[in-house]
């Protein structure tokens, strides 16, 4: 299987002292391409055994991944359409933009299976282009990090300054459009506390959002975007903002809202009292509330398991085909 690169060249280079001024090329194993080389030759046995091996490794991994994914309990509840009052269904945008209407909405969720803590609470938006070129760039990381750069709002167009020219902290479209629905959970009569700390990346809190940078002039413009921020809390503690500012790559995305640190039992009914503020109606996006447990592989995701199983299966199939071909009609 090892093919010595020397091949046809038999050591003509050694010996024979070169004449003076000879143009004879200098001898080295490199220039004569005589360095040993290794090159696998694909014999049938070799190919078959490699395929079998890959199959043997991949199929169990795939099975394990699928099982793990199936263990995850996930509750998804879409509420954007349901939370619009009957009389307003023809003018959802008017409903959401009308501050006079109370936006409170109550949903009941039944737990299908036991859920062990921590249970993660997500909100899922749909058709929301956080990846739009304009949107992604509309922020200033320096300003978020450093108090001394408070007035630096470059790149934040069109949410740089308020109408009278005072810089906004945090500036930019992303911060401006911060998600502002809120959820309250109760089981029976007892409220379930949702822990909203430690839901963002630690590195973001420590390095990207300053603990001495406070929101200023935020949402004071003529057009209000999303949530208003507490001007007395430094940005590094505004974790919902930090989560939001990690822009999603796809138009459908989930973001972590918080954690419920209590186990939920099968057939428990949870009442969610939510404030439906966020406007997804104008671009006909959906809003969903997601409760999910995790496994060692993360959230519910069958893809990885299926992919492993497919590759492993394919390898087995090829291995058997080759074996049959090799046995029936050897070359």
């Amino acid at each position, binding site marked *: 299987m090892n093919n010595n690169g020397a091949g*046809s*060249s038999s050591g003509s280079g050694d010996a024979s002292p070169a004449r003076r001024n000879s143009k004879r090329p200098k001898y080295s194993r490199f220039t004569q*391409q005589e360095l040993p080389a290794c090159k696998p030759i694909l014999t049938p046995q070799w190919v078959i055994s490699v395929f079998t091996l890959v199959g043997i490794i991949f199929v169990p991994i795939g099975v394990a991944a699928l099982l793990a994914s199936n263990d995850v309990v996930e509750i998804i509840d879409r509420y954007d359409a349901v939370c619009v009052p009957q009389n307003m269904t023809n003018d959802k*945008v008017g409903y959401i933009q009308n501050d006079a209407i109370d936006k409170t909405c109550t949903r009941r969720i039944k737990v299908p299976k036991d859920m062990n803590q921590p249970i993660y609470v997500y909100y899922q938006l749909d058709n929301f282009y956080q990846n739009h*070129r*304009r949107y992604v760039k509309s922020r200033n990381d320096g300003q978020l990090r450093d108090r001394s750069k408070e007035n630096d709002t470059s790149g934040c167009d069109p949410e740089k300054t308020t109408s009278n020219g005072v810089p906004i902290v945090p500036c930019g479209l992303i911060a*401006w*459009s911060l998600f502002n629905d809120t959820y309250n959970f109760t089981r029976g009569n007892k409220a379930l506390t949702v822990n909203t700390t430690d839901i963002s990346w630690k590195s973001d809190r420590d390095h990207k959002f300053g603990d001495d940078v406070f929101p200023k002039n935020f949402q004071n413009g003529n057009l209000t975007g999303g949530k208003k921020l507490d001007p007395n809390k430094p940005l590094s503690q505004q974790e919902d903002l930090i989560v939001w500012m990690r822009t999603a790559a796809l138009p459908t995305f989930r973001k972590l809202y918080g954690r419920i640190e209590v186990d939920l039992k099968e057939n428990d009914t949870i009442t969610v009292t939510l404030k439906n503020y966020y406007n997804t109606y*104008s671009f006909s996006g959906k809003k969903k509330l997601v409760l999910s447990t995790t496994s060692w592989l993360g959230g519910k995701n069958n893809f990885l398991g299926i992919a492993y199983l497919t590759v492993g299966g394919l390898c087995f199939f090829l291995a058997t085909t080759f074996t049959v071909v090799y046995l029936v009609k050897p070359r």
Partner: protein
Amino acid sequence: MAGGRRKKNFLRKLYSFSCGKASLDEDHSQIGGPGFSRIAFANDPDCFEATNLGYPANYVSTTKYSLATFFPKALFEQFRRVANIYFLVTGCLSFTPLAPYSAVSAILPLIIVIGVTMAKEAVEDWRRYQQDNEMNNRKVKVHRGDATFDDTEWKNLRVGDVVKVEKDNFFPADLLLLSSSYEDAICYVETMNLDGETNLKLKQSLEVTSNLQDDSNFRHFKAVVRCEDPNANLYTFVGSLEYQDQQYPLSPQQLLLRDSKLRNTDYVYGVVIFTGHDTKVMQNATNPPSKRSKIERKMDKIIYFLLFSLVLISTVGSIFFGIATDDDIENHRMKRWYLRPDDTTIFYKPSEAAVAALLHFLTAMMLYSYFIPISLYVSIEIVKVLQTIFINNDHEMYHEESDKPAHARTSNLNEELGQVDTILSDKTGTLTCNSMEFIKCSIAGTAYGLGVTEVEKAMARRKGSPLLYEPDVEEEGHRDNNKPAVKGFNFTDNRVMNGNWVNEPHADIIQKFFRLLAICHTAIPETDDESGKISYEAESPDEAAFVIAASELGFQFYQRTQTNISIHELDPLSGKTVERSYRLLNILEFNSTRKRMSVIVRDEEGKLLLLSKGADNVMFERLAKDGRKFEDKTKEHMHNYADAGLRTLVLAYRELDEDEYAVFNEKFTEAKNSVSADRDEKVEEAADSIERDLILLGATAVEDKLQNGVPECIDKLAQAGIKIWVLTGDKMETAINIGFACSLLRQGMKQIIITLESPEIKLLEKDGNKDAIFKASKESVIHQITEGRKMTSSSDSQSFALIIDGKSLAYALEDNVKNLFLQLAVTCASVICCRSSPKQKALVTRLVKEGTGKVTLGIGDGANDVGMLQEADIGIGISGVEGMQAVMSSDVAIAQFRFLERLLLVHGHWCYRRIASMV
């Protein structure tokens, strides 16, 4: 004696003066007119008129760029690549707010890529500059007035300078020869750098200036040269010399070209006529056509495809972007409010969605620029350079004797070597080593010479009949005991060697035969002072072989002057060596149309002799009725020789009477001195008139030695499925025999021979009706080709060999026949084209290249192969004996044919695989 000779010379030349003047009149209108306007004031380059003409100095620059033009020109070269243009546009755009990323990241790779390639260019150009510099600063002696000659640099020469060039030096510019160290003002010139011919050429000055043999003569020398404008034709020159109020015509015979070398002559004086870039060499310098490998062309196509898909993606993307942007505000309501479409720039304005989409298109083009693999070019370039180093350093392709390693001159064709489908090979110097050995002869109908040729051995092997050749094998054993063989001489026959020939029946004819060999040639003897040995510088290896043979057999040619040839010869009566000198009167030179050469000499008894040698077909028809005594026998022998793969020449002579010679000489000199266009024809006509009624002496046979390892190499290449075509100028029989010798043709191969040597055609040729010949020949060729097609298609188990001669080839290459010919040729395992001209070689190459669309490789060593090498996808030059012309125009140079095997099957294969896996 010397004085007498001189007088005689003058007489002869006086004659030519009158002729010269006559022809000058008709040419006079041309000189000074358009195209013939050059004037050089000899020895007076400073005079007013001369400075007014503004001819360039002798400074030569072959660099592509100068310091000032390097950047614009090199950049322009770079941006001829589509990918580079694209990246430049992207780079420029990235400075606008359109850019999706920072400008540096767009422009930096481009700068690196272009910088690297430009640096490579710059280094190459710098080397060229240094070469030029070395050239321009060579020293030459130039006349400074007052008969003093000073050293000066080449670059300082001006038109009109008188220079003195010494032995073994190059001429600094195109010079008009005035005089030389020889009394008769001849000099020998080696033109290897010009045409690759290693033989010496004779140049002679005008008689009027030939006495300017000393520095002091030039104190008051004044002359005006009027001549043609600079042009690239090496072999023509029209001009006149005005000297002492007389006009003298000038011919190429007086012109010494730059880059040729003075040999065998102590010094010459000359006037500079063309300087610098006006010289014929520089006018001739053309860049070889740049060849690109298939993989590179393929890559270009891929790049175009990628560019297209890039545009497609961008277009689709921007259309959707436009639609989405347009939708953002509907009825004054923002849809995607989080993008603030109410307060936006032009790039996202819903009201101007079309413009926004267009701008988005540009952005997308930049964004997806990773589609175009810019670094691929650089990586490929680097890999190729490495491969070139491997090829250059391969010990297996280093030739010990000539001290020549392989040399890949261009790096971009390495991988093509692995894909060669057809090899078109020259024979002489490529398959054979172009060293001739005199091996057999037939004198007066008796065959002499017992040597065995390579071809005979191959034939013996083929026929499996060793019996026939047993005596020869014995003879070979004998030879080993003999004295060390002389190069170019492999003749063994005790009947004629060591002076034994005097006892043979036709001793007088044998004497004449060898005498002819010793006289009828243009070789120049060079005596080694220490050993007293004589070596010969000859125009072709055949001639050298003849002269050596003659000297080995007792007719030693030892001295040549302009008018005399001196020979030590064996006197059959006394048995002693006597010195004889023959006065050389005329040389009727060899050329490919005449296929013969003759000399006219006067021997010591005052008899005029015409000695002639030439190819069999032209010679036999020129024999006198009573000179055909041995014709049949000789023909038979020659046939045998040709069968044995030998080159044959027929030798014949004739005695002339004085009157006849006088008439001829007049006619001949007149023809020689005419300057008109039909000069060659006239000369030929004159020569033709005297070369008749010859008496046959015999025939010679020389063997063309095969190079080492050629048959094995061809075998291996054939095994690798590579077709080999041999294109040669040789006779059909010789070509076929060489084909057998180098295992190109094998026993059991069916030979399809296409030739026009059929009796019907010959009959037509006698009639001389050109149209009829043309028509009949063409029909015959087409007929033969279709016959061949039938044969090949009817049986597929047999392998075929196609042999076609030059005449038929001319018809076969015509537009409507060539496809038919090609179809036949590709079904044959090997193809041999005999008697083909350089042009035909190139045409065949093009036919194969374009007809089959496969990679062709041309291999050859001589100037006649240049066309073929440049036409083929890959040209390989053999850096052998025939000079550097082929090497200069080749892509890879190797020393021996057998290295081709390794080059193709090892390096080519590896290069292709590696490049392919890299891409």
